[in-house]
């Protein structure tokens, strides 16, 4: 019973709008705070890596961004599935709001990885499974956004892109597996042993905190985008006038 009321409130745009309005600044503030602490921990307190020297500090941006890019895709697919199954507008709006953020984290992971790759492996890009599947993830995001942009009618765009997100998530593990399998059959490129830095505590806690900061930041951005989406979609609804009045 309680679950159902909760579910219902989740489905009602005015409620979600009010929730987002109330909580955005808290998530944003927490994200900023955590990020500052983690940056201090990562850039100042953590000792330089014995092998990579200071280059390893790239991990504080790179790894959290990469983790989030995967997490956000899952979030998006779940939201899309909820939207499809229960015809829930808010869920569709949330899925739509996820995509650009996720795509940006993917770009950040790719970008920092490439910058890092140059000193480490001597090339910006190698065809390694992890890299390749991250690139394909970017294509999945872009396809999702392209499909949304290509369909005029918002309701149609919601449903069509939701089908794509769900199909895509079925495919994500297959892609990951196939790409790894593809490459592991050949000799691993010698340049690129993902030198797993022996993480000691001083190095590790800023990394985990940075991940938390990124996740909080994601939630804050998601809530903001969700509000914008709801305003755009529900502009004819009466509650909008009340909210804005």
């Amino acid at each position, binding site marked *: 019973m309680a679950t159902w009321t909760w579910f219902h409130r989740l489905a009602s745009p005015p409620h979600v709008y009010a929730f987002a309005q109330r909580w955005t600044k808290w998530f944003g503030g927490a994200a900023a705070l955590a990020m500052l602490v983690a940056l201090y921990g990562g850039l100042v307190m953590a000792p330089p890596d014995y092998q990579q020297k200071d280059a390893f500090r790239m991990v504080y941006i790179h790894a959290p961004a990469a983790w989030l890019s995967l997490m956000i895709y899952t979030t998006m697919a779940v939201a899309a599935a909820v939207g499809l199954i229960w015809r829930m507008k808010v869920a569709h709006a949330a899925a739509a709001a996820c995509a650009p953020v996720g795509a940006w984290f993917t770009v950040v992971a790719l970008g920092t990885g490439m910058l890092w790759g140059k000193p480490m492996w001597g090339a910006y890009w190698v065809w390694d499974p992890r890299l390749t599947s991250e690139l394909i993830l970017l294509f999945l995001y*872009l396809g999702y956004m392209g499909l949304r942009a290509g369909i005029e009618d918002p309701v149609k765009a919601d449903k069509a892109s939701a089908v794509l997100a769900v199909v895509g998530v079925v495919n994500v593990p297959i892609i990951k597996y196939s790409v790894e399998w593809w490459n592991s059959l050949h000799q691993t490129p010698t340049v690129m042993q993902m030198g797993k830095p022996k993480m000691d505590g001083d190095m590790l806690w800023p990394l985990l905190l940075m991940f938390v900061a990124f996740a909080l930041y994601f939630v804050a951005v998601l809530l903001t985008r969700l509000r914008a989406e709801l305003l755009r979609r529900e502009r004819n609804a009466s509650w909008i006038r009340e909210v804005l009045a």
Partner: protein
Amino acid sequence: MRTSALTAAWLVAMRDLRLAFRKPSQLLQPLMFFMIVATLFPLSLTPEMSRLRDAAPGVLWVGALLSSLLALEFLFREDAMDGTLEQFALSGQSLTWMLFAKTCTHWLITGVPLALIAPVAAAALGVPGEAMPGVVASLALGSFALSLVGAVGAGLTLGARRGGVLLSLLTLPLAVPILIFGARATELAITGGNLAPPLYLLGAIAVLGVTLAPLAAAAAVRIGLE
């Protein structure tokens, strides 16, 4: 008395076959496209047989993928434009079955001939004769899986404008595993290795596709119709 779902699907398949055979030249077009891609590639590279043979799996598979993508554009588009899909959706029959029939027919008239003609292109790329059965088998299975995945993409892009390029954008990432396993099987066929594992994996993807793709395609088409 109502037509059964299977009879309806059968009629849809027959209709597509008849449309295809009304213009036999249409059957040849994806094949020609494939052959041209396979011949252009050597043209843009140094024509050394050993280097060509190295590139052969890639050339064959990228050619097959792109030619099947091009043909996929026509899978639903014409039916959508002339109102046939609307009539399908309003026929009181299962759209899933009808679209599955369309997809299988599409594979029959594009994928199968492509797999059958591939040995010619492969020979031109220096692939030895013993490898041909493997090349044909992997392309036939792979193109079936591609048709299934592509049907979902084709359904999704119905409502979108300028669907052609968007279709590629949506389908290609989904097609990556098929490409990898297919190319791997072809490579193993060329080098004489055991190509059963990648073929099994392709088969698994095709089975997954058969169960999921027609459902997703039917959902996508219904959305596109609105």
